[in-house]
C-alpha cells in the first residue's frame, strides 16, 4: 500500500470545564486517542451518535481546534503543531465543508467574493483571472456562473451547500473534511449534493473524511468506515465488513436501530440499547460501551480493549468479546403478526 495521505495517531482533545458549586476543574474527554489513515482519492466515513467526537475530530484535522495530544501527519509531514503561517500553504490541500449552509457563508459577501476568498488569502492569481476561475468553480458544482454577484440569501439551502463546496475546491485540495454536509438539506436535495461530491471525487481524485450520523449515507459514500463511541473508534474497516459483518456490539446495535425502508412488515433481528450515551465528562472505566452492552463481563470494566485486527481480518475492533469473524449479520424475516 502507498504511503497514507493523512496519518492520525493518538489524536486527543480534552476540553477543560469547571464543574459543581466550587468550580472544580474537570475535562470533557471529547476525543480520546484516535488512530487512522486516509489514502489519496479514498473516503473514510466517520459515523457515530451525538457526542461521540466526530465533529471535534474533523475540526482538529484541519487545525480549527488544537489537539490536546497525538499527531496528525499530512503527506508525510507532522502538522500537529504548525503555526498559522506555516499552516497556510497546507490549507490549499486540506479543506473543510460545514454542516450548516446558512451560518458558514458571510451574508454580506457576494458568492463571487466568498468563493474567491481562499485564492485571495493565499495570494494565488489564477492564469485566466480570479473571476474566470470562480465562474469555472461555480459551474463545476452545478451553479449558474452568471450568479457570481448574488448574495447567499438569494440561494436555497442546497445551492448554498454547493457554494461551500465550490469554496472548498478553489485551491484544488487533496483532502476535504466534510462535516455532515447534507444533514441540513431536504431528502431530494441531499441526493443532489451526494452525487455532486461523488462526481467531484471521481474527476479530481479527492480524498474525503466524511462525517455523518446517517449510516446509509456514510455507507453510500465511503469505502472505509470508522464507528465512534464516546471519543473512541470502536471499529474500523471496509464498508462491506462494517455493514455486513459488524464485529463490535455497538456497531451491530447501531445498524439494527436504523429504521429501514426495505424492511417494513418484517421483524428484523433487533437489538435495543437501553439508556443514553454516558457523559464524556466521566466516561465509564474500561470499555466505554460496557454500560449499555449486553455482552459485558468484569474484564470490560477493568481493562480497556485495544483497537486491533483479530484473527486475520483487516477489520479492527476494540472489544473483549467481538462477534466471530465472517458471520453475516442475520436479518430474521418473520412476517409480523
Amino acid at each position, binding site marked *: 500500500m502507498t504511503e497514507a495521505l493523512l496519518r492520525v495517531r493518538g489524536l486527543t482533545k480534552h476540553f477543560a470545564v469547571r464543574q459543581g458549586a466550587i468550580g472544580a476543574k474537570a475535562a470533557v474527554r471529547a476525543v480520546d486517542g484516535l488512530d487512522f489513515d486516509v489514502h489519496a482519492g479514498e473516503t473514510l466515513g466517520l459515523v457515530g*451518535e*451525538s457526542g461521540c467526537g466526530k465533529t471535534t475530530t474533523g475540526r482538529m484535522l484541519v487545525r480549527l481546534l488544537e489537539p490536546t495530544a497525538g499527531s496528525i501527519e499530512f503527506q508525510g509531514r507532522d502538522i500537529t503543531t504548525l503555526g498559522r503561517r506555516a499552516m497556510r500553504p497546507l490549507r490549499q490541500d486540506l479543506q473543510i465543508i460545514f454542516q450548516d449552509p446558512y451560518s458558514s457563508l458571510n451574508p454580506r459577501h457576494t458568492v463571487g467574493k466568498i468563493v474567491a476568498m481562499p485564492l485571495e488569502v493565499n495570494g494565488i492569481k489564477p492564469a485566466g483571472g480570479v473571476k474566470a476561475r470562480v465562474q469555472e468553480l461555480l459551474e463545476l458544482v452545478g451553479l449558474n456562473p452568471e450568479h457570481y454577484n448574488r448574495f447567499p440569501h438569494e440561494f*436555497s439551502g*442546497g*445551492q448554498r451547500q454547493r457554494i461551500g463546496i465550490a469554496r472548498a475546491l478553489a485551491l484544488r485540495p487533496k483532502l476535504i473534511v466534510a462535516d455532515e454536509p447534507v444533514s441540513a438539506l*431536504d*431528502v*431530494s*436535495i*441531499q*441526493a*443532489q449534493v*451526494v*452525487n455532486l461530491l*461523488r462526481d467531484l471525487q471521481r474527476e479530481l481524485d479527492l480524498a474525503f473524511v466524511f462525517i455523518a*450520523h446517517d*449510516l*446509509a*449515507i456514510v*455507507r*453510500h*459514500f465511503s469505502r472505509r468506515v470508522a464507528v465512534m463511541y464516546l471519543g473512541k473508534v470502536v471499529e474500523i474497516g471496509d*464498508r462491506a465488513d462494517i*455493514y455486513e459483518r459488524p464485529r463490535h456490539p455497538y456497531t451491530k*446495535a*447501531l*445498524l*439494527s*436501530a*436504523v*429504521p*429501514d*425502508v*426495505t*424492511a*417494513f*412488515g418484517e421483524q428484523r433481528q*433487533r437489538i*435495543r*440499547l*437501553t439508556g*443514553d*450515551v454516558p457523559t464524556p465528562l466521566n466516561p465509564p472505566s474500561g470499555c466505554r460501551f460496557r454500560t449499555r452492552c449486553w455482552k459485558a463481563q468484569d474484564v470490560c470494566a477493568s481493562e480497556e480493549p485495544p483497537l486491533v485486527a483479530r484473527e486475520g481480518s483487516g477489520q479492527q475492533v476494540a472489544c473483549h468479546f467481538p462477534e466471530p469473524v465472517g458471520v453475516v449479520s442475520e436479518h430474521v424475516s418473520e412476517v409480523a403478526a
Partner: protein
Amino acid sequence: MTHDAASPPYLQVDDLRVRFSTADGEVRAVDGVSFGLHRGRTLGIVGESGSGKSVTSLAVMGLHDPARTKISGAIKLGGRELVGLSDGEMRKLRGRDVAMIFQDPLSALHPFYTVGRQLVEAYRTHHSDASKAQAKQRALDMLDRVGIPQPDRRFGQYPHEFSGGMRQRVMIAMSLMNDPALLIADEPTTALDVTVQAQILDLLADLQREFHSAIILITHDLGVVSQVADEVLVMYGGRAVEHGTVAQVMRGPQHPYTWGLLASIPSLHGDPEVDLKPIKGNPPSLINVPAGCAFHPRCAYAMKPEPCAGQVPQLLAVQADGHRVACHLPEQQRIDTYTDEIAHVGVAQ
C-alpha cells in the same frame, strides 16, 4: 385499508384548505387534502419542508392563528366538525380527544415548572373534579408507562434535568394523560440519536396497541414511516399526491415524486456503487405554486404543456384497493416506469 371499513373513520378530513396572508402574498399551505383514519391505525404523512404536512396537523389541532389564517373544508373528529369551532370549544377537545407530540420537547415543555406540575396541569384541565393526589398518581403511572425510571424522583425535576430521549418520553406521557383517541406526532424522533429513536418508535407502537388510538406521524424519514405506519400520505406543494398502505407506497409507488424520494435515499443493503437519482430543482414556493400538477417542473415524465402544466391532477383510486395517486400519466405507464427505471435505485432496490 379494509380495516374497519364498515365503520366511519375516527378522523375524516375533506378538502382541507389552509391559507395564510403574508406581506409577500397568500400562502396556500394546504390545498385540498382529504383522508380518513381509523382508531388503532397509524398514518404517516411524508413530505419535504413546505409540503404542508405540519400545517395539516396544526389545523386538526386548531392551533392556527384565526386572525391570519383561512381554513375551509371539513375536519370531523369522532363525527364532530372541528372547522369553525370557537376557541373555547376547541380547548375542551385539545389534549382530551386529540393530543400532540412535538419535535423539540425542550421548547414544548415549560422550563420553569417541574415535569410533574406540567403533567398534573394537563390532567386537571380536563378532569376538574380530580383531586391533586389523583392527578399525581395518574402522572406517576404515565411516567412509569413510558419507561422513565424512578418516576417518584423524576416527577419533581425540571425539563433541563432530562436527556433528549427522556424528555421526549415526558412529552409522550403528557400527551397520553387524558387518553386521547387521536395522537399527532410531528417529527417526534428527528432530534434524537438513532438508538434512542428506535426506543421511542417501539414505545409509540406499544402504546398504540394498548390504548387503541389513531396516530398521525409526520416525518420526512421514509424509514421511520415504513417501520411504524400502516398507511402513508405523500404530500407535495400543499397537496396529497399519493396515499395507500405502506406496502403499496413503498413497494409499488406510482407518483413520480414518491419515486424521486425513494431514489434519493441510499440503502443500507443495496449496491452502494449505484448512483442516487435525485429530483432536479427545488421544492416550490407555496406563494407561487406552479399551475397544473405542482410537481411538473421537476418531473422527468411530465406531459407538457397539457395536461401536466395545465390541470391539477385529482387523487384517484388505482387498481390496487385503497391506493390513490394524483398523476396524469396512464397507470400502466407508471407501473412500467417504476419497474424499469426506479426499482433498482436507492432504497427502492
